[in-house]
């Protein structure tokens, strides 16, 4: 098969000491930027991009993609240890990862996160290897109605599958949608809800909100509990690693489901962020014990991390084949490619085979090297938890502030982050879930644009969302998920009615 020969060639290009050394350097740098909340993948890659200008293209892209993998791995660390997601797709990892860390199972959670990340990426890379040319044409079928149906699916699955009270989920989501509207409206070209403040022009940045909602509010809550948290030492040994791995096969369905969801949403342009939420929600829905989710269940780390990494990896495919970056980090990577005259597009796979297959080979190698690297450093990261809270809290706040500032070099964002910290604290107190809010903030304006473009194109006819089998099936699935609690109850009732009927009949 041609793919194999090309891939083997890619490995030959990469397997030199120099490349492997670059790989390590890239991974370490990547983990480092991934760990700093808010600095995250996109900013990290942007800062490090000029480092590679003097290298040859292959070395440069290996280094850059390793920074990317490193940042993906690193994002999980802050989510689990401090409840601060570094990237949008790390949000769902906090749901169970953070409670685990609080229970003194940080090492376990980190091992689970890294291993499942690796599995997710591997699944997606295998997919890329064999399906690369065909997937591009699948992604091309996505016009405005299809995009909207995918966003609708994500929103509906949240309401239908969420554990929290439905009305609270909807309140939280609606607030997120409202704030997503701040700034320039692409479709009309007008400003909305900026009230003459030039700081509000660029809208409310998702990461600023997330750092405040999750990170700062957590500090506030812990302060309220009189700094009495987290003296636990995280027991770290090969045994933890071994136990987690031994347990893993039991969750094969979750891993496979999350990999598939992640890969599918990653390839779907713009779907990458939704993947980890969907992976988490579905794992919870199909679990025999959904109540234990959110309280430190290891499956709750496996599910979103696998999906996030499968989608993060698969998101590179639309970027290479179509020039549509699936994530912020991928967008910066895209800028990097262009410096070497590698213009992403349908011809990249034909004209720059060496480069493309070198990159795919580096996905395999980078992931393996990355896994070893992060696993060996788990003790270091887990040890952070043994530092007294009074010492670490100011450091977290400072690094949150730096992170929020670094996203757009704006002092205003630090105030916004603090404000969101208070909002997050209040929400947690009155039991309004934060996840639907963040999801609406990140996808809201895209969903709105897609809906309005679909309406302009169809002359206002809502039937456009059932106009072909692709968009029709996604939209229908969205509604099924929205009304899932009602449907599953109805199904249960019907089968109950049927059973006695059988016995008597």
């Amino acid at each position, binding site marked *: 098969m041609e793919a194999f020969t090309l891939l083997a060639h890619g490995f030959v290009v990469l397997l030199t000491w120099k490349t492997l050394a670059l790989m390590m350097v890239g991974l370490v740098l990547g983990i480092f930027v991934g760990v700093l909340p808010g600095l995250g993948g996109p900013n990290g890659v942007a800062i490090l991009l000029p480092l590679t200008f003097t290298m040859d293209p292959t070395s440069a892209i290996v280094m850059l993609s390793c920074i990317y993998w490193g940042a993906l791995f690193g994002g999980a660390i802050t989510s689990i240890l401090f409840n601060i997601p570094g990237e949008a797709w790390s949000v769902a990892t906090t749901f169970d990862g953070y409670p685990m860390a609080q229970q003194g199972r940080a090492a376990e959670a980190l091992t689970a996160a890294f291993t499942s990340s690796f599995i997710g990426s591997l699944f997606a890379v295998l997919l890329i290897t064999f399906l690369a040319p065909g997937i591009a044409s699948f992604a091309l079928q996505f016009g*405005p109605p299809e995009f909207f149906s995918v966003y609708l699916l994500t929103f509906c699955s949240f309401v239908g599958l969420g554990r929290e009270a439905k009305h609270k989920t909807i309140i939280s989501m609606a607030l997120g949608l409202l704030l997503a509207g701040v700034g320039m409206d*692409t479709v009309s*070209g007008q400003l909305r809800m900026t009230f003459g403040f030039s700081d509000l*022009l660029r809208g409310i940045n998702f990461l600023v909100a997330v750092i405040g909602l999750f990170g700062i509010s957590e500090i506030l809550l812990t302060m309220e509990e009189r700094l009495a948290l987290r003296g636990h030492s995280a027991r770290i040994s090969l045994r933890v690693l071994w136990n987690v791995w031994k347990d893993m096969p039991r969750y094969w369905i979750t891993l496979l489901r999350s990999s598939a969801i992640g890969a599918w949403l990653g390839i779907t342009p713009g779907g990458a962020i939704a993947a980890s939420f969907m992976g988490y929600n579905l794992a919870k829905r199909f679990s025999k014990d959904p109540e234990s989710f959110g309280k430190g269940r290891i499956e709750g780390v496996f599910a979103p991390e696998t999906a996030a990494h499968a989608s993060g990896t698969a998101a590179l495919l639309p970027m290479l084949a179509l020039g549509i*970056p699936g994530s912020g980090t991928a967008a910066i990577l895209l*800028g990097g490619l262009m410096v070497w005259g590698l213009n992403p*597009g349908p011809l990249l796979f034909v004209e720059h085979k060496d480069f493309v297959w070198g990159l795919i080979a580096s996905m395999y190698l980078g992931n393996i090297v990355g896994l070893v690297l992060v696993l060996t450093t788990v003790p270091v990261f887990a040890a952070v938890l043994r530092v007294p809270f009074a010492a670490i809290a100011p450091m977290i706040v400072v690094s949150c502030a730096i992170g929020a500032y670094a996203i757009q070099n704006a002092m205003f964002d630090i105030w916004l982050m603090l404000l969101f910290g208070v909002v997050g604290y209040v929400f947690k107190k009155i039991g309004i879930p934060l996840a639907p809010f963040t999801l609406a903030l990140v996808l809201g304006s895209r969903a709105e644009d897609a809906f309005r473009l679909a309406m302009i194109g169809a002359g206002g006819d809502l039937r456009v969302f059932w106009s072909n089998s692709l968009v029709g099936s996604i939209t229908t699935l969205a509604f099924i998920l929205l009304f899932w609690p009602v449907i599953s109850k109805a199904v249960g009732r019907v089968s109950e009615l049927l059973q006695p009927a059988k016995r008597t009949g």
Partner: protein
Amino acid sequence: MKSFVVAGTAVAAMTLANAPALAWEPTKPVEIVVAAGAGGASDQMARMIQAAIQKHNLMKQPMVVSLKGGASGAEALMYMKSSDSDPNKVLIAYSLIYMLPLSAKIPFNWRELTPVSVIAMDQFVLWDNTTLPYKNVKEFVDAAKASAQPFKMGGTGSKREDHVLTVFMEKKTGAKFAYLPYKSGGEAATQLVGNHTASNVNNPSENLEVWRAGQVRALCVFDKERISYKTKVTDTQSWNDVPTCKEEGLDVQYLMLRAMFLPGKVTPEQTAFYVDLFKKVSETPEYKDYMEKQALKPIFLTGKDMVKFLEEDDKLNSSLMEEAGFVAK
């Protein structure tokens, strides 16, 4: 100045001639502000400039690219406006400097910044999907007129260059289009390939790759004369083979500037440094390659010539916006 001399060939000769004039130099990393998202035409140009400066050692301080594409680029404009007398920020401007203040009432006027140089002019081309049967402008326009549903025209942003061009096409031909504003030219290109729109008016660079892949057809270029580059880009066509829209009976012309600005209230020495820097950049092989690859029109204006050009260009853009009905009341 020593590092300049070793830098190389043509550049070295230039530098020697101008060396005494260079009184001021940046002492901090220079930020090159991009008023668009990652991967767009402005971003690519910024990366090219960054790489050219670094390779030829044109400046001692490093140059960093800073993406400020929020609010359709208004973020970058307000950022420059609030950076008075800071000589370490350079904006890559395009026609948004005229249009955005009119359509969205952004409190910005390019006269508050310091013009450095115009470094290129960008073209607009009318494209359709190769799977559609319309092989030239006339067939395309006739089909658009006859269609019961208006043809979908993709473009970047609302009430901007692409939208203005669409309105003028409607005025000249009598056909109606449903204009779909996307976030970037790249998105408009992909949506055209996927047949979600019938056409777009992308810049050459935005559609280059899909054109080479044979997925879109270049119908005509919105300029008085054809693009000068004669090297084959696709299997059969060079940029020069694309007819002008006027030749094809559609009398609409529009060119967009690509220009560098410093914030307001900088000293003449500081401005002189950057004029010289971008002059040198425009003589590097990287710049020349880039111009040809992206089918940009070479131009280098500075000083009084540039201000005169900007005033005329502003007047033209304002009248187009007025006529299209895009000026916010």
